[in-house]
């Protein structure tokens, strides 16, 4: 296991380098220099040339990439000329907020979707199953923006039960404690995730329920509760482990729309702003973070699978 993890980490580092090289080259091709951002739209060719020379933007792009990686290894993600702050401080300001929003949504989604999926499988083709399926399909088909707007209109603007915007606190502790402001953004993300997770869970549960060992367990007289908990749940959750691992980076990216709608500053919004501003260094840093999270999510999922299912051996 340790050897496997070490090998995976080694491969992951190579993948990260590959991703960074690809993204750097791509960004460099469309946006070779931040000269106009720094110097203003009035900058003439001579001024731009002088800026590029002074700051190394006229070096070959591989040399610039090497310089970037060197800075990266020293913890320097570059500078945002548009926002006049270092990329590291920009990310530090918001990553915990995004992590909280994503984390709470993911936990709630798992806690609700798994039993819901099991219920639907056990009680399939009943009224309860049909209702849950209908709601899941409706929510899943709905764009996240639309769902959020509906929740805001009904629960914030009409009923005044919750705030129309996410927490404006700049501290994570403040965000965690502000349930009045965070309920709707969390609900928006959670509902959509439940809709998809519960469908997966229903499907895998139905597969497991058809297995012989379930029939044997029932034939032995085991209470249904124990059949579901000891035999069904553990086996049906295996695909969910992979799904959860791979959904971590998606949740961060999916946050963009939720953050924009609920006035909640997070990583997704930082990325979107950087995209509009062609804020080179922020785009690069965000992409690397996304790649890192994907790799970590994948690795965690693989390891979790071996823990959940001893039949799986990592080789």
């Amino acid at each position, binding site marked *: 296991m340790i050897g496997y993890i070490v090998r995976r980490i080694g491969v992951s580092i190579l993948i990260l380098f590959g991703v960074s090289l690809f993204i750097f080259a791509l960004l460099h091709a*469309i*946006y070779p220099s931040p000269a*106009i*951002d*720094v*110097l*203003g*739209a*009035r*900058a*003439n*060719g001579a*001024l*731009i040339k002088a*800026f590029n020379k002074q700051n190394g933007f006229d070096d070959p792009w591989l040399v610039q990439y090497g310089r970037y990686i060197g800075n990266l290894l020293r913890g320097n993600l570059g500078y945002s*000329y*548009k*926002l*006049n*702050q270092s990329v590291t*401080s*920009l990310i530090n*300001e*918001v990553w915990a907020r995004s992590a909280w929003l994503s984390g709470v949504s993911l936990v709630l989604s798992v806690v609700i979707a798994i039993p819901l999926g099991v219920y639907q499988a056990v009680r399939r083709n009943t009224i309860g199953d049909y209702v849950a399926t209908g709601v899941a399909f409706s929510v899943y088909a709905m764009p996240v923006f639309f769902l959020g*707007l509906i929740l*805001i209109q009904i629960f*914030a*603007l009409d009923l005044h039960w919750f705030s*129309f*915007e996410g927490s*404006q606190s*700049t501290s994570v502790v403040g965000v965690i404690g502000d349930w009045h402001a965070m309920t709707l953004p969390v609900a928006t993300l959670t509902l959509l995730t439940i809709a998809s997770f519960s469908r997966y869970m229903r499907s895998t549960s139905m597969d497991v329920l058809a297995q012989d060992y379930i029939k044997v367990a029932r034939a032995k007289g085991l209470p249904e509760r124990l059949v579901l908990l000891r035999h069904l749940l553990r086996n049906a959750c295996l695909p969910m482990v992979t799904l959860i691992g791979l959904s971590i980076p998606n949740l961060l990216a999916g946050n963009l729309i939720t*953050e*924009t*709608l*609920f*006035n*909640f*500053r997070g990583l997704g*919004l930082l990325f979107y*702003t950087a995209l*509009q*501003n*062609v804020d080179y260094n922020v785009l690069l840093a965000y992409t690397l973070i996304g790649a890192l999270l994907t790799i970590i999510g994948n690795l965690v999922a693989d390891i979790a699978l071996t823990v959940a299912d001893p039949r799986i051996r990592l080789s």
Partner: protein
Amino acid sequence: MFQDGRRTRLARVGVAGAAALLAVGIAACTSSSGSSSPSSSSTASAGAGVAMTGQVGAVPDMATGAEKTGTVTVAAPPNSAPTWILPLVTGAADSVFDVDEFDYQMYRPLYWLVNGVEPTETPTMSLANDPTWSNGDKSVTFTLKSNYKWSNGDPITSADVLFWFYETKAALKESPANWAAYTPGLGVPDEVASISAPNATTVTMKLTKAVNPTWFMEDEIGDIQPWPSQAWNLDATGGKHITDWATNPADAKKIYDYLTVQSKSLSTYASNPLWQVVDGPYKLSAFTASTGAFTLVPNTTYGGPHATTESDVQFVPFTSDTAEYNALVDGSVDVGYVPLTNVPKLSTLTSKYNDFGYTDFGWNYVSYNFGDTTADFNNIIDKLYIRQALAHLEDEPGYIHAFFNGAGGQAFGPVPVLPKSPFTPATASTNPYPFSPSAASALLKANGWTVVPNGTDTCSKPGTGTGECGAGIPAGTKLAWNVDYVTDPAVIGEQVQDWASQAKTVGITMNLSSTNFDYAIANYNDPSSPKTVNKWAMDDFGGFTDSTYPTTFGVFNGPGSENLGDYNDPTANSLITSSISSPNPSAVTSEASYLTTQQPGLFQPNPDGGFGTASIVLWNKTISGSPQSFEGLTQDIWNPEYWFFTK
């Protein structure tokens, strides 16, 4: 207006050395041996020949009764976070948010050149009296008013103006980009041969050559924001005060470098004692670097006009227009905006808010690239009849109705019809080329083109004679080229698509593509990006905000730093040069008139503006103040010092 606040708006770029939103003073502004007040005939009648659409709502009179204080919450649009506090804004940080919403609240410019919606001076808000001219307009003198002082009790003196001047020179020596309003070789400081302070309140500038007094006052010295020479003359925190900045450029540079480092430290804006020395109506009491939220509290020593007791002002940033709209519906902000796309929903807000929409003083256009040689485009577009035909294909009233929801005004040249300016030419009030595809077709046919409706026209009569296509256009040349437009806001694309659609009906083929503002400015910009000169024929990125003396110097004279499409017309060059150098205070009117008829780009209608975007401004009905202070919001001018609560 459309403004780059970055991001979500049409972009406006300050014209020719002027801070983006300073308005022009009129009659009282000039007094010299050779100048006279602008003639009233230069002011266009608002109703002459064009529908004056665009105004939405109205500004109520100031409430009488007790003036209560509180905290006014103001919605800050997406991407509007200030990123620079030193009152010498860099090119990178330049935006209406950084300058007007933030900087000007603390550090006032010498002249306050807007009065409500009108681009005219409000003398009581100017730090200096109007300048006097001598020596054939080569020498200018102005005196500082005695009622304004710094918040630490120091009077604002001529030394503070000189301090600004020498520090600006130090900044520009490091990089011309260190001051967004700087144009090399032009105006302040390059045309100032010497500057002196004969006494504590008087500043005299001797210039290298005679200038147009109106232009110099409104576009150049009007931009000056005095710096506190006794408080900021440091090269280190807690260091010794440097006094030889005027005579020792190295020391001036040290001061500038120190202040720049402090200005880059956003998290210390509210706590740094440097930034607590202000001459404006407000001081900064809180600033959140991660969000751009900030709070202003009244500067009790402010010497200008204001409400009996000023309220605090809290700028609340929003991540999207939707989130801001929800805040208005919820009633949790006092001052906000509604983008033009939401104008039909205004009625849901007017029970709680007053609303007002007015066009701002500026212009939007499609830039033509006179340097693009692809398929002889340069030889096509330099023909006036082609540009006239293109103008005939634009349906301004239709765009205002369909895309602006009625909240916009027509504009036919670089000086719009509204707001009224003393420099609006007579030609600006009537569309010289009204919407008429048949007129466009007739022009093309009359000049040797075979018009193929819904196809592509070709030149069938090459040559330079009457009825022929013109110089440089061989037989068979097609009227087909690419047109790029920025995608945000959507109204830009909507206008361009309709225009291209109309063009197709007379056989002009425009191949459309879209991009974002930053890419467009970086690449469809001949002075900055000569290598892409043949890759674009036309580009719509937005437009420019007029300074109150609305010369297009730098934009439509060749060569100009913002002459994106290399337009170069000797008559235009001469008129534009006269605008900034002749003694005629209304010289700019002739420039505007000529450009209106020449159409160096396709001038487009102006949407109602405010908050750096096309919008209707709203404010809580419990807030009152001078009507001009609310009207000014449409010009991106902020005067919350006049506001008070009525309950």
